[in-house]
């Protein structure tokens, strides 16, 4: 009967995993619905007629016939509730609609822009992690002064707003030194400044939460016993202290990814880089409801996914937590 008892023991674990997944899924759908609803009603609070947005933006002198045509084409002559339900139904079936300003399908527009923003965000996240860990390790190993210096650097970089940092980096590296292009092109050199702008503040945040845990772990009894076992300092660092320090960092990465997406709005505009953030900005100005909704849903979806992944990673990194 060992087999039966084995399945008995396993069943709840599978159930637990399923429940965890279901919970994440329901939560995710709720978030997406909330985002779609907030945007649908929020963007209508801005004065002006969405039909104008279709006919070339606010203050258009489009004729009455042209406006009526646009309203009929985009279903804007229906009551608001009907419009809302129609748009929810379309979204649920995966139809993001047609952009008012670009006059092409939103899914197509997003498809073109996602890779650029993804490259930027992922690189920034990696660089931020590397910087945070590097600084945490370096400053812990160089005594009190190092700690103070590292902590100070982190505080400053965490507090720096993106637009300011971007301008300073452009002034330093593009105008004064001439090492890097101020405008982000597809070349690797063009990516350096935008990635640095996003990564530096994030590294500051991650570094701050990591340093304390790292320092604590590095001086803890298990690190001491590892050293006593004859493990090298590097071994202790990699196998024990870093693992501890990574935990709060992982927990923060979901949030960090969200902050990178919002940072992309500023960074893509300043460095004139194509991407989701820049098109979100122009879509909001043009009152392009389908495009704004599309970008927001995509960001929210990515955020939900990353949160779930970081939750999973955290469970895997920490044996005390029940793996799903």
């Amino acid at each position, binding site marked *: 009967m060992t087999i039966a008892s084995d399945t008995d023991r396993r069943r709840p674990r599978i159930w637990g995993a399923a429940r965890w997944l279901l919970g994440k899924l329901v939560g995710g759908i709720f978030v997406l619905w909330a985002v779609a609803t907030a945007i649908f009603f929020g963007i209508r609070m801005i004065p002006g007629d969405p039909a*104008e947005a279709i006919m070339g933006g606010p203050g258009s002198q489009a004729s009455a016939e042209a406006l009526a045509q646009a309203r009929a084409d985009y279903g804007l002559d229906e009551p608001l509730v009907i419009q809302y339900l129609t748009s929810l139904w379309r979204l649920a079936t995966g139809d993001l609609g047609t952009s008012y300003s*670009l006059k092409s399908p939103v899914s197509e527009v997003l498809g073109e822009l996602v890779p650029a923003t993804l490259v930027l965000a992922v690189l920034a996240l990696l660089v931020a992690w590397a910087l945070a860990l590097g600084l945490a390790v370096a400053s812990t190993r160089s005594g009190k002064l190092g700690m103070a210096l590292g902590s100070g650097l982190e505080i400053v970089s965490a*507090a720096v707003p993106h637009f300011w940092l971007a*301008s300073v980096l452009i002034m330093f590296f593009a105008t*004064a030194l001439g090492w890097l292009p101020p*405008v982000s092109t597809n070349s690797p050199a063009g990516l350096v400044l935008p990635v640095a702008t996003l990564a530096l503040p994030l590294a500051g945040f991650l570094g701050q939460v990591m340093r304390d845990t790292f320092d604590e772990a590095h001086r803890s009894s298990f690190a001491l016993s590892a050293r006593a076992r004859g493990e090298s300092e590097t071994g202790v660092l990699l196998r024990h202290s870093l693992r501890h320090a990574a935990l709060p960092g992982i927990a923060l990465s979901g949030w960090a990814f969200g902050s990178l997406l919002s940072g992309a709005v500023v960074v893509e505009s300043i460095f*004139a880089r194509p991407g989701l953030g820049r098109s979100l900005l122009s879509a909001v100005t043009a009152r392009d409801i389908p495009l704004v909704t599309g970008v927001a849903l995509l960001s929210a979806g990515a955020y939900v996914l990353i949160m779930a992944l970081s939750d999973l990673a955290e469970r895997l990194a920490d044996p005390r937590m029940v793996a799903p």
Partner: protein
Amino acid sequence: MKNVRPLARRLFPALTVLTAALVLAGCSSPADSAPESGTDAGTPVIGGTMVYASGDAEPTCLDPHVGGNYPQALVASQFLETLYTKDAEGKLIPWLAEDSTVSEDGLTHTLTLRDGISFTDGTALDAAAVKANFEHLLDPKTSSSTGYLALGKIDSMKATETNTLELKLKTPDNSLLESFSMPWVAIESPTALKRSQEENCAAPVGTGPFKVESWKKQEAVNLIRNEDYVRPVADPNHEGTAYLDAITWRFIPEAATRYAALQAGEVQIIDNAQPDTIAAAAKNQAIEHLDAPRPGASNRIELNSSKAPFNDSKVREAFIHAVNVDAGIDSLFFGTAPRSHSPLSSVEPLGFSAPSLFDYDPTKAAELLDAAGWDERDGQGYRVKDGTRLSLTFPVSTSQSVPAEQSLFEQLQATAKESGIEIKINLLDLSSWYGKLAKNDYNLVSAPYTKVGPSVLSVLFHSDSTIPAPSGYFANLSQVKDPALDALLDTAGSTLDTAERQEKYAQAQKLVLEGHYLLPLYDQQNHFLYSSELLNVGATTAVASPVFFDTWLAK
């Protein structure tokens, strides 16, 4: 994080100083003596790609028939041409058109087109092509705004011969040829216009010195030389095609990035240059400046005469004397924007100026306000009448008023306060700003208006223009409704006698200036900065958008 921020704040100034020091160090390296541009530019060099960086929002459609705004005109001026244009002296000359005649009653215009001109898709330019363009502009499905208004008086049209188009007007319109000089009424290939709007927006086909090769949204519009270009009016100094191989038209919304890209040599020309940047660039010998004020109206503050307190002309006059415009312009525009005292741009030959009406004179303002009954003061020093404070709402569009202009409005606010007038500046995005205007929720407003010729006066000051378009928009923002003014504008706009036209438009301008309906500030600013490696920059269309047919890159 609360305990963190003060430290960061203390560190900011230190970092800023450090940055400034480094930047100054970078700028102080002496630049090679650059050749003078424009005059004696030397022997033209053929080849090379010029990168243009625009600060405007990227157009959603490259066909200026659709919608019709200035960013579209800027890029379209490279690949589309107009029936008429303005020469270097500002004189209206036929371009794609060869000639035009008007019947004695002013109701029939006959346009003759030039022979031997083709669109870049091979279609020949003829009367039927021009007709197809006008029909495209008047079709509601095109959703033309600017071009539609310009052709509003056309009743019917007929191609009487291959190269002759006859236009019948509803009422005489002596501004028609000026309208034909605007890029929003540019002539496109009728074959290309038959494509879907999406296709035509992506790559309109014209007769210009360049043509659209590709458009990668959010990156660049790529233009290449039109190898078959025939200049409608021969240029003895420049035969054949354009010198540049290609133009890369980029969009860099941030002013600082745009200038940094110019300094770094990544781009050769930028538009929307701001006063502080122009002043900084003046010290840099590797960068040149092109100042091309736009035609049409001057930039001005309109005083809403439709409601209190500006329904009283004394209060309007008092406001004009209470604000110190000259001091503000001097301190904020670094000499880049000469003061205007006219409703029209300084490039409009029929502009009428009345500098004596616009003195900064707080004493006079006080007398006028006392006489108008605003003779009490409240606790904050503002004037009061019947328990109401003399308070003016001023919605400002952050996309139409550049930072220097917003600062100017703040300075006017400060000087008006000394005379007991409160100005409430309300910074708004474009939609909300139009929303305020549509609801008549403003006392002061500044709105640019670009158009070729003095007929812009009818758009801005005729009582017909107080009637809102279906979108709620109306152009007569001072809401002046004066039958005498309407009569002047109607006559000025329809007469075939040029002397009478000039006389009536001058009287109309005098009337609105003396009625204190507006406070002119300066021309509509249109500044470009370019690398001194770029030679022979300066030719522009009738709406002051640069044309790069004559431009070359020194190697």
